């Protein structure tokens, strides 16, 4: 519980590996202990493989200086004063994570379309997960803000197009504010109540779970009848709440669960209402 601060700002994933490095550095020769471990990790794999058509000068020596240079800098950073370094480890830890992420898939020589499509496919997989929240729950744990932005913009544009002529800008602003401020406030509220949630994960989940409502708002462009839109909005509201509850269920709020969940309902309800009356 007390550690939830550190856990939330993403330096903790790096912390174990960091601690390991610090630990081993202080007692062992870093070159002996770290090289095998580092060579197993995928992040430096490209360095070890000689380029095709290029012969290494001396097969025994040439990979080593490269690798040790790499390690040297990182172990330098790790061992240069344990206190200050671990304190400021947020940025460094993130850097390590990004380095790992970047090299997990080789994205250097792929076409741009492939890069964009991969992100879109990611968003698509998460949307599918929201619509049918039965399979892999953890897919929404690697958060992104593209999906929420997409939901928010779609909703804002659809609703502002349907608003009165002199209120279009205000409607757009309100939807935009409600979606972003709403998800932020709901998350901060859960944190203040003592729940274990990560800020961006929660914002991501709340944003993605708008998807049923976004679908209904698009449908209601062509369906003016209130008798069809009312049940549709009700179903979408229930769906969105249910999906987001499923993802956020493990926030450990014991006997104040209702206090954390209520703002979430309020958030989806007001958006569902605006879709209904627009």
């Amino acid at each position, binding site marked *: 519980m007390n550690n939830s*601060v550190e856990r939330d700002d993403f330096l903790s994933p790096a912390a174990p590996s960091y601690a390991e490095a610090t630990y081993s550095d202080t007692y062992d020769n870093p070159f002996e202990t770290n090289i095998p471990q580092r060579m197993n990790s995928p992040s430096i794999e490209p360095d070890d493989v000689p380029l095709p058509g290029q012969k290494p000068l001396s097969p025994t020596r040439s990979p080593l200086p490269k690798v040790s240079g790499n390690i040297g800098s990182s172990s330098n950073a790790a061992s240069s004063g344990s206190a200050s370094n*671990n304190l400021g480890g947020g940025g460094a830890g993130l850097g390590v994570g990004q380095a790992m992420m970047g090299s997990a898939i080789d994205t250097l020589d792929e076409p741009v379309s492939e890069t964009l499509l991969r992100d879109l496919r990611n968003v698509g997989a998460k949307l599918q997960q929201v619509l049918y929240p039965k399979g892999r729950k953890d897919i929404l744990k690697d958060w992104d803000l593209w999906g929420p932005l997409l939901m928010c913009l779609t909703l804002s544009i659809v609703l502002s197009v349907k608003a009165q002529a002199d209120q279009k800008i*205000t409607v757009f602003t309100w939807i935009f504010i409600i979606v972003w401020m709403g998800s932020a406030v709901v998350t901060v509220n859960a944190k203040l109540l003592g729940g274990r949630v990560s800020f961006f994960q929660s914002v991501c989940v709340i944003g993605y779970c708008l998807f049923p409502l976004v679908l209904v708002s698009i449908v209601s462009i062509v369906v003016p009848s209130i008798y069809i839109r009312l049940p549709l909005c009700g179903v979408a509201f229930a769906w969105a709440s249910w999906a987001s509850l499923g993802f956020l269920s493990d926030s450990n709020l014991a006997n104040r669960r209702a*206090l954390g969940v209520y703002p979430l309902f309020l958030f989806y309800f007001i958006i569902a209402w605006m879709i209904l009356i627009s």
Partner: protein
Amino acid sequence: MAHSSAYSAIEIDDDEINNATELQFQNFTSSDTATAAPTGNLSSSSASTPQPRPTGFGSSGIFNPGRAAQEQAVNRPIWSIEYYAKFFDVDTNQVLERCFASVIPKDNFLEVMGGSPDLYGPFWIATTVIFVLFVTSSIVDSINAYLNGTTYSYNIYQMTFAFGAIYTYAFIVPLMVWGATKYFGCQPDLLEMLSLYGYALTIWIPVSVLSVIPIELARWILLGIGAGLSGVFLIRNMYPVLSRAEAQIAKIILILVIAFHGALALVLKYKFFANTSTIAPPADPST
């Protein structure tokens, strides 16, 4: 940009227990544990870290977030989120009890709060009132439009106005009352004042919902009930504070409080529950 394989290292928050065991397994020295905390006061936080852990390990059910939040709030800097956790240290039952006590003001509210006023109630009750006002006023307008035979399109400025009016009443007015009473030496508590004003808004939720009924007399009666109950609630609980000032000044502040309260009630009536006749005159010349 987001690849599950890479980010899997980041999903820490949910399996806290795993992570905690990992951290302990790696045999941190005391200096390592202390450095894990980003705040300045390393010694105190590292000292309090191990205490909740053992209960958290056994089963998460034993773990009591309220107590932990209280412990956590000690020695936090004012700009961190954890500092404000102590204002949100309430359970569901407590909040419901306070809402109920504010709607039916027969007990002393400060006793109901038991010396721990919260900000959860004021903030979320105010926000709820804003949204309820928007929802009911759009229903009222659509009923008016239906009765007048015109088509209805919603007015987003109702939302803007509701936000301005309610947040002003819930946060600015208590701040002003607090400032005034403080100036005249009544020793008020800002948190209590905010709680008082926030929970006093509870009655407007049922009143707004019931004001959908398109009968003018019923709306006025509801408005009177709402304003009366919350007014009695406010004055009754503010009186002990006000009575510490001189009689003349206490009277003036009391009148101002009642004036603000009446103004809110009238604004709600004419802005959100306007009857058909106030809508009709602009439509009359055209017919």
